[in-house]
C-alpha cells in the first residue's frame, strides 16, 4: 500500500507538471497581439529565403555516438541492481561485475580502435 501511494504521488505529479508550463502559455493568449503575416513567419535565417529542404540528412558521426551511447545505457540498467545488492555480495559477485564492466569497456575500446570516436 505504501509503495502504491508513492507511485500514486508520481502519477499525480505527471498530471500536474504539464499544467505549470501550459498555464502561462495559454494565459498569454489573452494578453498578446495576434497579427501574423507572411514575412514575419518566414524561417529565421540570414534575411534571404531558405533554400531547399530543411530536414536534411546530416553527419553520420552523430548516429555512431548514439550507437555507442546505447551500448552503455542498456548495460547500465543491469549494473544498478548489482550496485544495490553489492554490500551483501561476496567475491564471486565482484568477479561477475568486473567481467561485465570489462565487456563494457571492451566495447568502448573497440569503438575507439575503429576510429568511431573521432570527430570528422
Amino acid at each position, binding site marked *: 500500500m505504501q509503495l502504491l501511494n508513492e507511485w*500514486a504521488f508520481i502519477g499525480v505529479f*505527471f498530471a500536474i507538471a504539464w499544467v*505549470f508550463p*501550459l498555464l*502561462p502559455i495559454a494565459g*498569454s493568449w489573452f494578453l498578446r497581439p495576434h497579427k501574423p503575416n507572411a514575412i514575419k513567419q518566414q524561417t529565421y*535565417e540570414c534575411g534571404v529565403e531558405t533554400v531547399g529542404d530543411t*530536414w536534411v540528412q546530416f553527419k553520420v558521426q552523430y548516429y555512431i555516438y548514439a550507437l555507442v551511447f546505447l551500448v552503455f545505457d542498456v548495460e547500465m540498467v543491469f549494473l*544498478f541492481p548489482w550496485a544495490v545488492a553489492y554490500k551483501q555480495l561476496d*567475491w564471486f559477485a565482484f568477479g561477475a561485475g568486473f567481467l561485465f564492466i570489462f565487456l563494457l569497456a571492451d566495447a568502448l575500446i573497440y569503438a575507439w580502435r575503429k576510429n568511431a570516436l573521432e570527430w570528422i
Partner: protein
Amino acid sequence: MEQQCRDLINTLAACMVAGGTDPNLANLLSALLGVVLVATLPLVTVILLIWVERKFAARIQDRLGPNRVGPFGLLQSVADALKMLTKEDITPAGADRFIFNLAPIIAFAVVVLIWAVIPFTPLHVGSDLSVGILYFVGVGSIGAVKVMVAGWSSNNKYALLGAFRTIAQLVSYEVPMILALLIPVMMAGSMSMQDITRAQGGMWYIFASPLAFLIFFISNLAETGRAPFDLIEAESELVAGYNIEYSGFKFGMFMAGEFMHVFTVAVLTAVLFLGGWWGPGVEQIPALGFVYLGLKTMAVYFAMLLIRNTVPRFRIDQVMNFNWKFMVPLSIVVVLVQAFLMRITTSLGLAPNEAGDFVSNLPQTIVLLLGNLAIIAVVLNMIRNRGRQQRLADEAAAAHSDLAHPAGAPAGD
C-alpha cells in the same frame, strides 16, 4: 503513526479519513496538495535565482546588473515574465505546429518532475521511490527529447543543426553521469534518495569518492548546457541553437527550464554527495533539513556560476573527445576500484556498522579516499606525459619549418 502525524500532509489525509472521507479520495487529495507544494518550490526559487545569476555575472564582468525594478532589481525577473506574456507568439511557416508547441511544455515539465523524489528533510519528501535514482535518470533523459522535438519541428536549419549537436552532447555525458551515480548506490545499498541521504549520516560520499563527485558535477554541467559546454547555445555560431524560432512565453519556458535544471542538479549533487539534509540538530528538528540542504545546494550552485562566468567555450570535437576518451574510461575505472576496495574492506571487517556513525565509517572512507587519490595521481601523470610528448612534437615541427623558411619568414605550408 506518530511518525506520520509529524508530517503535515500525511496528517491531513489521516484527519480526512477520520472525518469520514473515503480513504482513496483523502490520499489523492493529500497527494495533490503535496505535488503542488513540491512543484511550486522550484518555480518560486527560479524567479529569485535568475536574479542571483544575473547579478553574479554582472559583478564578475564589472557591471551593476539589474538594479531598477524593485529593491536591488529583485523584481526584474517578474518584469521579464510579464513582458514575455505580452509578446506576440510567432509560429514559423512550415513548422510542425503540434510538436512545435509541445516542446517548451516538455522542457519545463521534465525539470519539475525531478523534484518529486528529492528529500528535503528526514520527513519531507515528495515521493520516496525505492528506485529514485533510476527515476531521476529516466525523467532527466526526456530532456534530450525536448531538444530534438524543438529543433526538428522548427523547420529551420540552424535549429536542426543545433539540435543534432545538443543531442550528441546530452546522450554522451549521460554515460559518465550514470556511472558516477553507481557509487552512492553501491555505498548506500539502495536507490532511494532518502536512504542514500540517511546513509551519509556518518560520512558524506564526497569524502569517500571525490572523483565520483567530480565526474557527476562535470557531466551535469554538460547536461545543463552551461559553460564551458554551452555550445548548445553558441550564440556566435548557431544564433541560439534549437530554440531559435521560439518567441514569447514559449522561449521563456526553455529559459526557465534551463535555469531550473541547473538548480535541480545542484540539489541532486547536494543530496547524493554532500549529505543532503544532514546537519547538527536535524534529528531533533527535522525542519532544519531545509536550511542545510539549501546551504549545500547554494554552495554547489555558486561553484557552477563561477565556472560559467570564467571558463571559455569548448569546440564540439573537444567536448566529445573529453567525454568518450577521458570521462567514460575514468568513470569505469572509478567504479571498478570502488567495487574492489569496498570488497576488500568488507572482507577485513572495516565496513561501517549498522548505525553508520562517523567512527565506524572512518576506516572504509580512508581506504576509498586513498584509492581515489591514487587514480588522480596516475591520471594526472598520464596527462602530463601526453602533454609533454605533444609539446615536444610541436616544437620539433616548428623547428623543422623554421629551417625551411629561414630569417623569420612566416612558417606554414
